[in-house]
């Protein structure tokens, strides 16, 4: 028996993601206040509302459905993170266009497309201390676990662990891009808000809500 996600499971995942973003909004704002303009919590809440609204509607084509969730997020949040999250969802949806159920290999492919989309959209490099430093290791970990045939629950745990490890590895570094790039030296030792959001988001998708 292969594990697989249908529309109901996707809707549940969106709702878990929305709840997590909303729950962590204040912490994300605090982190963004230190290195940016402090609007990341607002973005998280706006995106959460859009995802909840989207989850209330169904859809046959899961690819289009997930891409449309990205569009919905961008419609309410055009900040950097709003745009990156929208791009991620649109790219993830694109690779499974036409699917009515998603299997583990597809999930891994989707996360890689999402990471790749964020990289193309933001034109940042790994090591610039952005969300890329969390999402790329996570995508690689998920792909490796799925390729090795490990169960989805364990693969999810490995994905989130990798994201958190990526986040922590860049914390001592200096931000090199976006608003935080202007703050320079003072960002050393501070958690990148985008990385923090990435861990929260992936944990909720994997059903590991307590993970931070």
């Amino acid at each position, binding site marked *: 028996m292969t594990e697989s996600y249908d529309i109901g499971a996707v809707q549940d995942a969106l709702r878990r993601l929305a709840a997590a973003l909303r729950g962590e909004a204040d912490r994300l704002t605090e982190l963004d206040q230190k290195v940016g303009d402090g609007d990341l919590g607002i973005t998280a809440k706006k995106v959460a509302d859009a995802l909840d609204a989207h989850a209330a509607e169904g859809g046959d084509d899961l690819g289009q459905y997930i891409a449309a969730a990205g569009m919905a997020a*961008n419609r309410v949040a055009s900040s950097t993170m709003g745009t990156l999250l929208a791009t991620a969802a649109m790219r993830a949806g694109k690779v499974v266009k036409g699917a009515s159920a998603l299997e583990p290999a597809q999930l891994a492919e989707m996360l890689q497309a999402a990471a790749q989309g964020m990289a193309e959209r933001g034109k940042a490099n790994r090591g610039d201390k952005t969300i890329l430093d969390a999402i790329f290791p996570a995508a690689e970990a998920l792909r490796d676990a799925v390729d090795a045939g490990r169960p989805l629950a364990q693969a999810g745990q490995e994905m989130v662990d990798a994201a958190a490890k990526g986040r922590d590895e860049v914390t001592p570094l200096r931000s090199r891009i976006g608003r935080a790039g202007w703050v320079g030296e003072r960002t050393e030792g501070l958690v990148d808000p985008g990385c923090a959001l990435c861990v929260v988001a992936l944990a909720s998708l994997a059903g590991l809500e307590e993970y931070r």
Partner: protein
Amino acid sequence: MRRFFNNPDTYVTDMLDGLVKAYPKALAFGDDPHAIVRADAPVEGKVALATGGGSGHLPVFLGYVGEGMLDGCAVGDVFNSPTAEQMLDVTRRIHGGKGVLYIYGNYGGDVMNFDMSTEMAEMEDIEVRTVIVADDVASAGPDEAERRRGVAGMVFAFKTAGAKAAAGASLDEVEEIAKRTLAGTRSMGVALSPCIIPSVGKPGFDLAEGEMEIGMGIHGEPGAKRETLQSADEVAERLATAVLDDLAPASGDRVAVMMNGLGATPPEDLFILYRKVHEIVEGRGLSVHKAYVGEYATSMEMAGASLTICRLDDELAGLLDAPARTPFFQEG
């Protein structure tokens, strides 16, 4: 806050509503009230030009939508990018079958959203090209000029590329004109006061009376240096020197000069600044083809000014002089 508005949440939509009420023959909404297009869009058989960006800079951006300039503009919240979908809405409405050129300032959120809009437009078989404005010499050195912010210099690109499109040119040709214009355009500003985003309700930074920040960005991004306010002639000299040294025009070149007010600076003061700039420009052996003195790109109620100089060849000079009619800008 010494300002007029109702609810900070409806600041931009109230403003746009008033704008379309004021100029119903010139401007229209797209599906989204943040999409503003020429009332006669699409102009069939013409390359369409679009821009977009945060509110709070009028006439930038949507003030340049009209005959001979832009076809549409996506309008974000104050100092915030519009969404990709709003840009797509504009793009769809203005496309006249010959492609669309995006010209906008170099800000992260705008770039990402315009890129996203481009991808979506291409899925609908609309050809989109992008020219990014990065004219602010204070924001990065010449070695990383592509990282510079986009400020008032974009108006020259709107004008020349808009005139080229109006003359029936192809997307390639219009894009080339925008690039050529911007390759010869440099700006720098000086701020004497902060401004206030209505939803924030207080200034984003302090700038005391008697202080000036040379090189400050139009959202209050830190400048090169904070100093004691100097005389108009000294300020003009600082700006002109920085802009001209970076542009490095040859003696005998023709230029257009824009002395732009950021919001609260009276036009009288701008002419006092312009007077000295004019002397310096002529002192370098350049000739002023045309001067633009007034408010072309603002930051709400910020006091301050920016200088933009654009090097012209015969074609660009002719395109600057070509007719244009927008609610905020007329030529010829």
